[in-house]
């Protein structure tokens, strides 16, 4: 789960990490008032959940109220990579001596939380990682030790020589790690962390993602979620134990397991078809899930045919078959369905499906080709 910059700033403040002052605005009038209240140079920042908003023109410096209003008029309603700007953050524009990058993430290879820091802040860190990887210091943190003073100091001395700055940095690094662990974050970045003219370290932008698997124990974090319309559908699916991602094709897919679901989409594409979605009905099976999945697929009007590909393991094919048959009993389905079942309890599943007079196919390739053929007939 991702959150907006303004929300990340609030969380930083909760952990007493220094952040520039800001005011969140939803209208041009609010921006005007905020700029007047600051009565100095401010930054007008679009609040969207995608990167690259600076390049897209979503961040502007304003020397006075007029410039702030001007910028706000341009930025509200702006489309940045498919996200419409509905909120603007007006933030204090501090004098900057130098910019740094500080971040924490999960490292798959060391299986630990990785602390990253670089004196090349303010730019896309992915670019630095690609072009000048030595410029990023990386330290995996032992979960039993946490961010000890010496570790924090070790990193701070890589970035600063002035002891006053080192002390401030150590304090910030320890708080960031605490925040990462306590909130079940999966990515936590300050970019940039800057030295002001007054010799103070302060965050002027932040990005935080959270581990979806841990949201159940983070109600305060979950409450920060502002899903887009597509994401709302995906969340609703998740509540029913389904993972759904809408795509732009016309073949509705219902598959068990993420890998098989991806491979099913790949096979459809390979034969020239276009999947309408990724839909993983997950492990442990329960007939209600199949009913929910059918409802979800049918709610997408682009779907012209449904392809069901189940390989039973923990999911039992007879459960899926029963769910499908009871779904078809209660709902009107006027598009064709292509079904493939194999694995645990497949024989029983196929018997239920065939008793209901639904056709089944034997292989994934066959299913994909049949689905593509049926979809083209509808068009």
């Amino acid at each position, binding site marked *: 789960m991702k959150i907006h910059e303004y929300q990340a700033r609030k969380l930083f403040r909760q952990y007493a990490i220094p952040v520039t002052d800001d005011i969140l605005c939803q209208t041009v009038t609010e921006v005007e008032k905020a700029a007047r209240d600051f009565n100095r140079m401010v930054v007008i920042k679009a609040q969207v959940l995608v990167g690259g908003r600076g390049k897209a023109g979503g961040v502007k410096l304003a020397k006075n109220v007029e410039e702030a209003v001007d910028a706000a008029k341009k930025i509200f309603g702006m489309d940045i990579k498919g996200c419409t700007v509905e909120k603007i953050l007006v933030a204090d524009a501090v004098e900057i001596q130098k910019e740094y990058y500080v971040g924490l993430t999960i490292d798959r290879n060391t299986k630990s939380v990785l602390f990253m820091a670089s004196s090349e802040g303010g730019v896309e860190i992915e670019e630095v990682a690609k072009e000048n990887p030595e410029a990023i210091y990386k330290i995996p943190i032992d979960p039993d030790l946490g961010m000890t003073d010496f570790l924090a100091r070790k990193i701070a001395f890589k970035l600063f020589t002035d002891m006053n700055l080192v002390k401030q940095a150590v304090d910030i690094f320890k708080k960031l790690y605490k925040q990462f662990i306590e909130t079940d974050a999966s990515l936590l970045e300050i970019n940039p962390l800057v030295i002001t003219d007054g010799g103070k370290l302060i965050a002027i932008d932040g990005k935080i993602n959270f581990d979806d698997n841990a949201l159940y124990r983070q109600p305060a974090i979950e409450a920060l979620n502002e899903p887009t319309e597509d994401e709302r559908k995906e969340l609703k699916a998740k509540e029913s134990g389904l993972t759904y991602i809408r795509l732009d094709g016309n073949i509705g897919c219902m598959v068990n397991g993420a890998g098989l679901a991806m491979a099913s989409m790949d096979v459809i594409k390979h034969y020239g078809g276009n999947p309408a979605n990724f839909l993983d009905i997950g*492990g442990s099976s329960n007939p209600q899930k199949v009913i929910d999945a059918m409802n979800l697929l049918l709610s997408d009007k682009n779907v012209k045919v449904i392809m069901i590909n189940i390989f039973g393991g923990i999911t039992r094919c007879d459960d899926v078959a029963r769910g499908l048959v009871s779904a078809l009993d209660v709902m009107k389905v006027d598009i064709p369905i292509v079904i493939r079942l194999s694995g645990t309890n497949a024989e029983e599943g196929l018997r239920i499906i065939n008793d209901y007079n639904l056709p089944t196919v034997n292989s994934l390739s066959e299913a994909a080709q049949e689905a593509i053929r049926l979809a083209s007939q509808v068009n």
Partner: protein
Amino acid sequence: MVRNNSDYIDQITQLTYEPINDNLKKLINQTNMSILVNKNTRLLVQGITGRDGSFHTSKMKEYGTNIVAGVSPGKGGQTVDGIPVFNSVEDAVKATGANTSIIFVPAPLAGDAIMEAGDAGVELVICISEGVPTLDMVKATTYLKKKGVKLIGANCPGLITPDEALVGILPGNIFKKGNVGLMSRSGTLTYLMVSLLTQNGLGQSTCVGIGGDPVAGLYYLELLQMFQDDPETEAIVLIGEIGGDAEERAAQYIKEHVTKPVVAFIAGQSAPPGKRMGHAGAIISSGSGTAEEKIAAFEAVGVPVARLPIEIPLLIKKALNIN
């Protein structure tokens, strides 16, 4: 039990201070082949009284896996399928000599269950539970490493050595004993690949589902080495997916350490960037972790990559010169 053959060879050579001769080789070949699980596996099931735990316990038992104990706190003294249930893993290990544990507990409890198994002294832990918080896995993998205990998963289908031991939720009937080793980040995609292998007369030595989460136990590198050292394995199938750089690392490792033929498949060739495709690991972002990059990494080290699942058995046959 379960030890990989290079450990075994090391041990024998250390004892005798002699190079391996033909007699020793014969001795090694008489011991159990395959990797991680076999006839000597003494399995305990954590969460044996739950819906999935009890269902798959009976499936594993039916397959012939030697299940010696179950654990369910508060239900010690009961039996499931004739298997004694204990309150703690420690009690179960002491009473039954279990050496491997499989975990079916709900995700919020899984990290703790893994550590309990590690603490009790089993050699291998397999965690099936899906949706375990990443930081719980960071803690659990660190602990198991300190204890010297191997972990597979979480969020994985487990593993099987056909005709010897099924430790997981894999449908046993699709497997056939043979010499192809298989490792995969996805459960159900593994089943599809295995059925294709079996239909084409290609049996398997051991098949391991390593799970789709960002922080997991044994991964490609460790398993590649085990299959490389296993005399029963003649070719290796690696099934990867988008996200992370584990496949790229595997490609590098194969180049440096693996002499047996390896063939690969990458799921998610058609996935849009930035979307989590069910597996927390399966996110393509910032231009890394795409299927194209992974395919290129494998092909650069001479590992052929199937574009369709159906091509996997063909590539294996080609690698083993089978018509």
